[in-house]
């Protein structure tokens, strides 16, 4: 089962309420996305930690229902 852009956004916002999120469906197959996420919680964190926070918000879906989500994170 693929996830929609809205479902991905909802999951991220639940864990990272102040996040500004921009998601693109890269090929229109609801399976390959890119996401840019900006939040204060990333401040002072390494890139690995930032990406882990996003993966955690997706509650195990990454690598399973969600095959491909390319992530860019930024503090604010």
């Amino acid at each position, binding site marked *: 089962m693929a996830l929609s852009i809205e479902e991905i956004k909802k999951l991220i916002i639940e864990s990272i309420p102040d996040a500004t999120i921009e998601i693109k469906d890269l090929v229109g197959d609801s399976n390959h996305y890119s996401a840019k996420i900006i939040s204060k919680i990333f401040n002072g964190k390494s*890139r*690995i930690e930032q990406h882990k926070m996003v*993966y955690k918000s997706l509650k195990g879906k990454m*690598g399973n229902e969600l095959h491909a989500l390319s992530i*860019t994170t930024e503090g604010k």
Partner: protein
Amino acid sequence: MDIKENLKTIIDSNEICLFMKGVPEAPQCGFSMAVSNILKVLNVNFKGINVLENESMRQAIKEYSDWPTIPQLYIKGEFVGGCDIVKEMFESGELKKLLIKKELV
């Protein structure tokens, strides 16, 4: 040997190792191909480990790094990142700097 010990041995005994889908000569996923190509462009020797050949290894590496996706790049025992991070680091020149610092180029 226990899979976790096996994993640790691979990571410790190869200065640069890439856990990937497929092999460097024939990657089987675009993300694995991207990282493999970056390492080729930087002209470094690396060990490619095909997780598609070993399902328990695939699960074990995800637990080892607490990272849910493949590929995963390790340099001198340290987890550097997956495709997005490696790409960003390559484009900013940071990856090359890291390799120079670790005396691998």
